[in-house]
Structure formats: structure tokens, C-alpha cells
């Protein structure tokens, strides 16, 4: 393994681990009542997010979904502001106003995880249009789910990107379900990637549990996009281990042995094995894990010690100037 690849491999491993540990802790904190609202975990899908984002430059754009923890971490976001956000603190990446469904770090090109299904797709296309109009070579990648591919916004975004030859990568994370409904019942094609044909768009289907495979497919798409070749559609076949969101036991379908089967192909375990087989020392990987655990704990401490937003901050960021505070709150 050449050095560059090795760096990338270790960084991929680190980012996947970051997501996993970050979410494991977040789930526990949610169960303990420390984190309010809903929580949609990404566990099982880490290779998809990380493989894709590792193929992007730091200044490339990325847009995501309600399942919002994995994407910004994959894009390189620092953990402290993300954890502080989950804890609803003023130091959160969204100042405590976005929460679990909206972790987005604009500094690393993470332009918004939006919780209205499908709504990120036009935004990603617009960011790519911005690149084109500004004459730079930044590309724009949009994550979305199998369920989202049934929204009108998906269709309009794909067609726009295609007719305008925009540098967009449509990355469909097909985890087999939208809340309780299987993709097989709701999406009228076997592979969502079939839909690329409706836009004359090149497409690829990759094993979403294999971070290298995702990286390679996205790298090809990025090259195409950066050199004026227009959009690409990539479908990663992946899986979420947990229910749709925490406390949605009612819709935790009996997925039979499916969960176990997917767990046996866990992207992190698999990749660790591969790295070790490729000659990376176990100790190196252990060190990374130790560092990640420390990083997550540090983020938790930071979040816990941070202040909550003040009531006035509810009136900030509606427009570019703070709104007047209503009398009933100042009395």
C-alpha cells in the first residue's frame, strides 16, 4: 500500500470509528434524557458516508439528510460543536437551534443536513450551479435515501443537474427501508440507480459496506464532475442497524435475521480486517480507536460544560439582523 493510500485508509478508518463512537454515546445520552428530540442513527452505514466524503476535497460541497450525524463527521467536521448541538447548547454547530437532524458544518463544506425528505437535492444542485457560475471546480455531493428517491424534488434536481451539466454526485444510500416501508414495496425499480437512465446520467451500484469501493466509485464521479462531465448517480447498498429513530419501537419491524446478517458484514470490522491483512499494525488501529474514544469523550465534556442559548437567541438568525424580542419575553 503506497503511503498516500495508507494515510487515506487510516483516515477513513478513523472517521468511521468517530461516527460509530459518537453515535453510541449519543444514543446512551438520549436514553438518559440528556439529549432531547429525535435521533436517527447512522450505525451500519459508515462506509457509505466516509467512502464518499474521502473522495471529496475539503472545499467541495456536501448536503445530507435527517440521518445527519454521519455525513458531516465523514466530511471532517470537528466533534465538539456537533456533540454540543445534540446537547442543545449555544456552542453547538447550529447554536442549539438545529439539533440531531441538522448537524451541518459549513466550514467543511457540509452545507446542510435537512430533515424534509428530498429537500436537500435541489440545494446541492444549486451549490453546483454556483461553482459553475463562479468558474471554480468545486463539486457538490448529495446524500439521500431510497425513500427520498420517490420525492418530486429528487426528479427535478436530477433533471436540472443533467440538462445544465452540473458537477453533482447523487449519492443514494439505499438502506432498504424508509421508516417502516421496504424499498422493494415503495420504489418501482429494483435498483434505485436504474433511475439515472431517466436523466441520461452515468451510474454505479456499490457495496455500501466497503469503504474502498465507495471511495473508488465516487472518485470516478468526482473526476467526471470536476472536468465538466456533469452529474453521476451512485447507489450504495447499505443498512441501518437500529430502528428508524430512537423510541420508534413500534415501527421496528421484525426484520428477521437481516440485522445479524448485515452486522456480520459490519463496515468497520471488515475494514479493520482488510487493513491488518494489508499490513497495518494492529497497534496503529488500536491507537486510532483510543484517540477517537478520547475525542468523543472530550466532545461530550465540552458539550456538557457549554451554556444553553439565551432566550433572545431564539430571535437570531431568522434574518441577517436579530429580530426585536417580543414584550412578553422581556417583561
Amino acid at each position, binding site marked *: 500500500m503506497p503511503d498516500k493510500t495508507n494515510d487515506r485508509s487510516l483516515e477513513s478508518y478513523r472517521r468511521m470509528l468517530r461516527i460509530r463512537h459518537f453515535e453510541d454515546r449519543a444514543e446512551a445520552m438520549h436514553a438518559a434524557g440528556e439529549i*432531547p*428530540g*429525535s435521533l436517527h442513527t447512522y450505525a451500519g452505514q459508515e462506509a457509505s458516508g466516509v467512502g464518499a466524503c474521502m473522495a471529496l476535497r475539503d472545499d467541495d460541497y456536501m448536503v445530507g439528510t435527517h440521518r445527519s450525524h454521519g455525513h458531516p463527521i465523514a466530511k471532517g467536521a470537528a466533534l465538539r460543536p456537533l456533540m454540543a*448541538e445534540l446537547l*442543545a*447548547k449555544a456552542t453547538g454547530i*447550529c447554536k*442549539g*437551534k*438545529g*439539533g*440531531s*437532524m*441538522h448537524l451541518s458544518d459549513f466550514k467543511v463544506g457540509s452545507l446542510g443536513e*435537512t*430533515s*424534509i*425528505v*428530498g429537500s436537500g437535492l435541489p440545494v446541492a444542485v444549486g451549490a453546483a450551479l454556483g461553482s459553475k457560475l463562479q468558474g471554480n471546480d468545486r463539486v457538490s455531493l448529495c446524500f439521500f435515501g431510497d*425513500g*427520498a428517491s*420517490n*420525492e*418530486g*424534488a429528487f426528479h427535478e434536481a436530477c433533471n436540472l443537474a443533467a440538462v445544465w451539466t452540473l458537477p453533482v454526485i447523487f449519492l443514494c444510500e439505499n438502506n432498504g427501508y*424508509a*421508516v*417502516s*416501508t421496504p424499498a422493494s*414495496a*415503495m*420504489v418501482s425499480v429494483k435498483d434505485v440507480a436504474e433511475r439515472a437512465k431517466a436523466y441520461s446520467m452515468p451510474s454505479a451500484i456499490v457495496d455500501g459496506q466497503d469503504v474502498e469501493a465507495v471511495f473508488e466509485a465516487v472518485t470516478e464521479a468526482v473526476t467526471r464532475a470536476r472536468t465538466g462531465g456533469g452529474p453521476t448517480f451512485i447507489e450504495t447498498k447499505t443498512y441501518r442497524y437500529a430502528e428508524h429513530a430512537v423510541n*420508534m419501537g*413500534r*415501527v421496528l*419491524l421484525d426484520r428477521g435475521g437481516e440485522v445479524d446478517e448485515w452486522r456480520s458484514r459490519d463496515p468497520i470490522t471488515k475494514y479493520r480486517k482488510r487493513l491488518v491483512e494489508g499490513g497495518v499494525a494492529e497497534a496503529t488501529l488500536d491507537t486510532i480507536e483510543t484517540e477517537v474514544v478520547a475525542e468523543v469523550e472530550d466532545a461530550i465534556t465540552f458539550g456538557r460544560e457549554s451554556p*444553553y*442559548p*439565551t*432566550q433572545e*437567541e*431564539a*430571535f437570531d438568525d*431568522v434574518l441577517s439582523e436579530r*429580530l426585536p424580542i*417580543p414584550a*412578553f*419575553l422581556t*417583561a
Partner: protein
Amino acid sequence: MARITFLEAIRAAQLEEMQRDDKVFIMGEDIVCNVFGTTTDFVENFGLERVRDTPISENGFVGAGAGAAMVGMRPIIDVTLSSFLYPAMDQIVSIIAKSRYIYGGQASLPLVVRSCMFYGNSNAAQHSDRPYPMLMGVPGLKIIVPSGPRDMKGMLKAAIRDNDPVFCFEDATLWSGKEEVPDDPDFIVPIGKAEVKREGTDVSIFAIGGAVPMAMAAAKILADDGISAEVVDPRTLSPLDREAILKSARKTGRVVAVDPAHLTCSAASEISAIVVEDAFDTLRAPIVRVTTPDTHMPFSPVIEKALYPNKERILAAVRKVVGLPVPA
């Protein structure tokens, strides 16, 4: 009579009407798995044709409801949360509201769109909408916002039997509240009629949805202070029961309008405008609106909760219009 929750009332209304009329069916995202508990045992009772999961295609399936209604069905379209109505807005305004008119009465659209207003739960701006005022200015739609299990059951049943499109906004802050609700399968609460939930003489509090219990609680406290508050629940926001609103306003001469929606162009604004237009002569004080201010709903619970109407704000508003000092 049985003491049931708001959610159970929804289920009961749907169940009874689906049993009564096989033209009634229900569709929406994750209906089959019964996320909120309003379709418990429905698949067993009615099968997967009449209890129908949809893809995540709000404009598509809301419009499909319109088409099905035009050919004689009576769909209940469950748009899980009110924030998901926006993708369907074109079918709502251009098709559902306008088809009867634009085709000169040839089309009938007996359908119900149910949608829950899920706010106050740290679900942030994209999931916490209360958008009924948006639709109040759209002719051709009826809009109901029941404030308790009894009205919920009776009005939803009326809505399903109605020959016009009815939007039913369900305030999730009321979900677990219980009330005695008639079992009579023909128990109906008519659409278009406000209800005086408590009689009073000094001030009229018009309250909507989740604000009704707050207004009732405030009225109780005010009674201890010697202020007799009338609490009126419009229940139907389109068409508004102008007569009932004006009657109460004329009786008390003082009005407070409480509305969980955003202030500007709210139902509270409309009620205020109706009163000052048609009951000015009897009006003895400014009309005070108690609403959610025009900001988005933040995730952080420490700053979200105080934004919505609450009992204290209602008390302050009443004290203002009756001329009592408002404690700081």
C-alpha cells in the same frame, strides 16, 4: 361513553366511518405500521387495499386522494406532520381547493387530509409547523382544529361524511389528554360551529387547538380573581363561525385571541379583524393576540418552550384588556 385519549378518538372516528362506508379508505406514510396509534388493527379489519402505505411522495398521494375522491371514494389522507404539507401544496391549492369551482361543480372532492402539528418537542424548525393560517385564505377548503378527544372524534366523523375537502389539523400537545366521548356511531360534532367551552361576561378568550385547555385553566384562575372569562373555541377555522365570534365579543366587549400559529396573518389576526370590523361599537378594550412570535422554532428546549402561548401569557393578556395591572 368512554374515557379515551385524543389519539384513540382519531382511531375510533376512522374505524367507525370505515365500517359504515366502504368508500372510505386511508392512506399515508407508515400507516400500516401505525406509528402514532391511530390505525391499530386496521389492516386486520380492512385489509391492505383500504389501509394503504404510500411512498414518500406527498404531492403525489395527496393528489391521488383528490382523483380517487373525484370518482366516488372518500379518502382519509394522512400527512404525518404538518411540515410535510408543503411538498403537497400544489395539489392542495390548485387541485383540491379549486377543482369543484374550475369545472363548474362537476367535480366533488369528499376527502379528509389529516395532519399532526408536532411542536414543542425539540424537533426544530422543519418539523414544528402549525400552518393552518396559510390555508385559511384558500377558498374551497374546510379547516378544523379540534381541541379535545370529544371534538376530535365528532368532527373527524363529520369531516369524513362531508362532501367537501376538510383539513384536520391535530395538535400533538393534546394527544394524551382524556375525555368522555360518546360511543354512538352517529355522534357528530358539526363543522362550522364554534363552541362556548365556558360561559363568562367580562372577556372573551378565543382559543385554538392546544390553547383551549390553557384558556380554560386561565379562566379558572381569573374566576378566583373575580373576572368572568368566556372561552370560545372556534373549532372550525374555515369557514369561521362569525356569528358565534361576534356574539361573544359583543357580550363581553373584550377580546383575547390565543393561537399557537405565528403571529402574522394568524387565525388570531383574523378573529381580531372580524371583531373590530363588525363589533366595534361594543368593543371596550384593545384586542390582544397571544400567539407564537414570528421566529422559527428552535431545537433547544430551553428556548423553544417559552415561545408558544401559555397560561401565564393568557392571564397577562386578559388582565390587560380588563384594565387590571399586569404583574411584571
